[in-house]
């Protein structure tokens, strides 16, 4: 049984079909990259998998829970790093993480230990008493990464993990994600950054127009680049609103 199992998932917003029959499975130990152009349905899929919105059709299981009918149970078990970050908050990072710890029923000692460890790992120890709203976007992203992992979940959903982070921290986060998945956890990463996906993911799914158009294992030696595969699969459909610059270059070569 996969950590994440999606079968025939559909979700529409009015006349717009954001997810049009999605099927895939993610196993424990995998760092799964979810790639696709803007508007492909990535965020809608994550929101459905985490019980934030109700699907129109299909079945979804995350760690044996059904996010559609048991959203709180699902969210209790997983970690979520949303794309939007957090709204302006007047809590300090330390207080915010205490808040997250309380709603996740973590002990105060555990939260304090995790806060200290993550602050050191990502380098925001000096900002622990600064109001969240006054932090830079990069610092806010570090705090949000911390909240996603503070309860050491078996499955983590991450939307653009490296947004606004400096190169040094990016390297640390990438290494951490790889090691975290290797610890028998599933890490589901939605990103536009193909280079990052190619570097850290064990498997990727490419999504376009609300459907998974291909999956590819990134383990072992490969002949083609992920970028080529992405451009071929995403730009392959007619009338799709994506830039064709990459294809032009590829044709010329």
């Amino acid at each position, binding site marked *: 049984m996969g950590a994440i199992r999606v079968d025939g998932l559909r979700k529409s917003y009015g006349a717009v079909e954001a997810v049009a029959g999605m099927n895939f499975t993610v196993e424990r130990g995998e760092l799964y990259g979810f790639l696709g152009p803007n508007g492909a349905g990535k965020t809608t899929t994550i929101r459905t998998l985490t019980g934030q919105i109700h699907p129109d059709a299909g079945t979804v299981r995350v760690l044996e829970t059904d996010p559609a009918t048991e959203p709180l149970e699902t*969210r209790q078990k997983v970690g979520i790093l949303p794309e939007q970050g957090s709204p302006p908050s007047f809590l300090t990072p*330390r207080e915010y993480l205490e808040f997250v710890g309380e709603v996740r029923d973590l002990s105060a000692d555990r939260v304090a230990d995790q806060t200290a460890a993550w602050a050191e790992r990502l380098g925001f120890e000096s900002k622990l008493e600064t109001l969240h709203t006054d932090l830079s976007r990069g610092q806010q992203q570090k705090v949000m990464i911390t909240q996603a992992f503070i309860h050491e979940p078996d499955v983590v959903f991450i939307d653009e993990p490296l947004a606004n982070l400096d190169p040094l921290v990016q390297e640390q986060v990438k290494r951490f994600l790889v090691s975290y998945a290797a610890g028998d956890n599933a890490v589901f990463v939605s990103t536009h950054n193909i280079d990052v996906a190619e570097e850290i993911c064990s498997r990727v799914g490419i999504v376009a127009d609300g459907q998974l158009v291909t999956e590819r294992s990134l383990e072992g030696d490969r002949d083609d680049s992920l970028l080529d595969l992405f451009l071929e699969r995403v730009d392959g459909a007619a009338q799709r609103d994506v830039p064709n610059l990459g294809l032009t270059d590829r044709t010329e070569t």
Partner: protein
Amino acid sequence: MSGTGISTTRLLAVLFREEWRLHTQLFGGWRFALFPVVIAVLAVSATVALLETGTAQGTIVGGLHALAVGFGLYSGTAGFAGSDMLENVFGRLSLLLSSSTTLPLSRRRLLGVFLLKDALFYGVAFVLPMALASAALTGLSAATPVVVGLFWLSLCLVFAAGMATTVALIAVRTRGVPPWAIGLVIGLTVVGTWATGSLGVVQSVLVPVRGSAIAAGGLAVGTVVIATVSLTAYDPTYGRPSRTATDRFARLSGALPFENAPLVTKSLLDLARSSGGVWKPFVSASILLALVAALVGVVDSITGIAPAPGIFFGGVLGLSAFTTYNWLTQFDSLEAYLAYPVSIADVFRAKRIAFIFVGAPTVAVPYLAAVVWFEATLLDAVVGAILLAGYALYYYGLTVYIAGFDPNEFLFDAVRFATFTVGVAVALVPTLVAGFVVVPPSIELAAAFSVGGVVMGVIGVVLSSRAGPRWERRYRRE
């Protein structure tokens, strides 16, 4: 660079389009387009009702101008837009105004055009429908268009004066003047005006349609001068240094005996640490008290009729539930909570607890001031207190049920606004009428209002309890 690549007219047009899109996207075109109609209906019907109940024309004219000034003061807060100050007070917004950070456009110029756009937009969408009340005051005739036009200009003038005043205060703030000093000056000005007996002069200036042309001209010139000086003084580079805070979350959350204590604590700390802090709801309630007290004074001086202060102010001050809840939701979005294992119903329950914590002292102090100042009888004061608690809960429940987490959007959605208005009127109108008619209240009336207050409070609790599941369904189904 001052940004000479786009004309001011074109910039104004783009900002108008953004304003229109903002509202029509939020509510749908017809619901927003209907809003001025709702305002007009309310203004005209309220005027007719007040005339029918013997209210003097001067009182109604003064009341409409007081509303226009108040709305102008509120609209002037657009001066915060696009700055860190705005986020500190109102939460995050994304407007074209912020483009001065990425484009070669002077922020001062952009802000000036933005405020001009707001003045014109609200002048037409809100103030013009209000001005139609003058037709009800004078009766329909061939001169009605001229009467309405003059009344509109008069309202626009005081609306603009209110806006300019708020922008001036914001400009002063960007120069580093602390909020307490600004508050002190405002307080001293109000007290000084009252102590020197200058209220009459202020009243005549702020009701141009009834004053002299010189006073109206002076107000117009003064408004333009204040607006110009404010924009010149406005420091677009103002930014406060990073703020730090000691850890209060764990202790406060641990002290609250509620299941949703962390959610309540977050709401309370967000409010307390944002600009203006916990004083914001109190100031809002005090402004409401001042406006109503002034109107009561005017009515008393003209007609010799004074209401039962407990019942009257208890009913009216409960309306501050709307502003208090508004402040409590400025720094949140429901979507943000969906990353945690908490239900939307939990979030709403936590907001209700936070509302009671903040709202109770917020209305208690102005209410006590009103019953002492207007010398309420003990029975009247007790009944008023019951009404205040019950109606505040009712208005709160009504707001949460209709508007969810976005009470501010009432201001632009005709359907929601009309529903809310009817809901408020059902409770408030009979209360105000009885408050004026039976002075001091009889035992029977007091008992009836006490029961009524409790019933409305229960309805409010039921409404706010149902708001969570209602909005959870909406958010998850989208």
